[in-house]
């Protein structure tokens, strides 16, 4: 019964979130387009599914997965735990003592991206539009690997305290070089996948990890160093998606020979 009240609450807040979209679509539909929509009933039914589904999804995450994930992020970044692993109590920690943190960062980045609903949406659409040349599942794995690499590197950056913009600018240079060589048709999709990776599932857990790390590593400021993980998570999938397309093309060429 407790869950039921939470679900009702979540439906209400999701409804508030989509209200602007609803108003905009209704205004343009009724005032500007003034034509009946085809399959209106089905569309409405689908929209109700989306709302209800998103609400259930959020309640489940907030009730079960997020609290546990946040506790784990805090425990793994706790100096006591890291000292215990390093067996060097009292000594200064070096960046390599944080290996469980990097592994956790990569694992949580990968797994939350696989469950990210907006990425599922873009993957479905890309599979449809490409006529089967882009495999939705392959695309999602490529994006998830990119997020995993990005978050792990972002955690390393917080531990070492190196400036964020050097990483991001270096990443842009790699993206630029790949853009020259990657198949033309994948480029827009690759750029898009940078933006869709980080929403409902990934952001809260990753933010908890970043703030936990910045709060426990000596000499880091939560406010300045705690940010930037999301930027890594949006940059690296661009590279892995283009890499995925390059790999596909390379394998097709090799098969032709």
């Amino acid at each position, binding site marked *: 019964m407790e869950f039921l009240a939470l679900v009702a609450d979540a439906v209400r807040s999701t409804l508030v979130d989509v209200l602007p979209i609803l108003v905009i679509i209704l205004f343009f539909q009724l005032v500007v387009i003034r034509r009946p929509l085809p399959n209106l009933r089905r569309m409405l039914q689908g929209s109700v599914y989306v709302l209800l589904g998103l609400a259930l999804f959020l309640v489940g995450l907030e009730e079960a997965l997020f609290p546990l994930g946040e506790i784990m992020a805090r425990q793994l970044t706790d100096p006591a735990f890291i000292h215990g692993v390093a067996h060097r109590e009292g000594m200064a920690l070096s960046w390599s003592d944080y290996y469980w943190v990097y592994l956790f960062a990569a694992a949580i980045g990968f797994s939350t991206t696989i469950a990210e609903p907006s990425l599922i949406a873009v993957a479905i659409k890309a599979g449809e539009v490409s006529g089967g040349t882009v495999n939705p599942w392959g695309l999602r794995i490529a994006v998830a690997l990119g997020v995993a690499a990005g978050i792990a590197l972002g955690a390393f950056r917080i531990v070492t305290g190196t400036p964020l913009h050097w990483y991001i600018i270096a990443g842009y240079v790699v993206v630029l070089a790949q853009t020259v060589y990657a198949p033309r*048709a994948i480029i827009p999709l690759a750029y898009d996948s940078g933006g869709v990776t980080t929403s409902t599932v990934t952001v809260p857990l990753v933010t908890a990890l970043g703030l936990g790390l910045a709060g426990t590593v000596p000499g880091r400021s939560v406010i300045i160093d705690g940010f930037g993980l999301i930027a890594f998570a949006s940059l690296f999938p661009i590279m892995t998606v283009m890499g995925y397309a390059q790999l596909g093309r390379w394998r097709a060429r090799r098969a032709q020979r």
Partner: protein
Amino acid sequence: MKSPLDGLGKSLLDSVRDLLPILLVIGFFQLVVLQQPIPQLGRLLAGTLLVVAGLTLFVRGLEMGLFPIGEALAHAFARKGSLFWLLAFAFALGFGTTVAEPALIAVAGKAAEAAAEAGLIARDRAALERYADGLRLAVALSVGVAIVLGVIRILKGWPLHWLIIGGYAGVVVMTAFAPPEIVGIAYDSGGVTTSTITVPLVTALGVGLASSIRGRNPMVDGFGLIAFASLTPMIFVMAYGMVV
């Protein structure tokens, strides 16, 4: 018409498969690395069931509702042939969906704290709120502009990579001049602006436009709106940090 229950079993299995990695990661780190029991196992299982049901419904509703709505609107605007209304819709969609986005409200509040910490603004509540609201407005404007630009690109068939590369160059140049405290937040704001409902709608709009205009390829021209929407906020937030 297909019954809404068709293929439900398969969708449910897909959702379970999508969530399995999270459960494995949490289980492994909790039991093997941290060596602690999983607290409130029943609650975790109940929550997971809700998440599976929610994801299944969401994906089902996507294909029945959000995708067709985005495409129908794109076709209707293409048929109407009024550039003004199409761009007005693009701006409204970008601005309207971002200004109320909860993730953005949270980030804007944190950014105001960072700015106060750095001594850029006064430390009282009014100044913090003004800064956060201004930032939100800047990001929402930037997303509106992004969708408008993206739609113009689809209409004209400009290659996306030149625009994005130019945008990145802008980001790099501005990083050198923006106050360092704002840079991390600016980079992050690119990622948080696109919500779970906006993404499918905007994607369907782009693909629908590209497929209803002669000479455009939905794969090459239809995608890319989200890329604009994640790029322009970085520029606008750094500009905001420089001006305020």
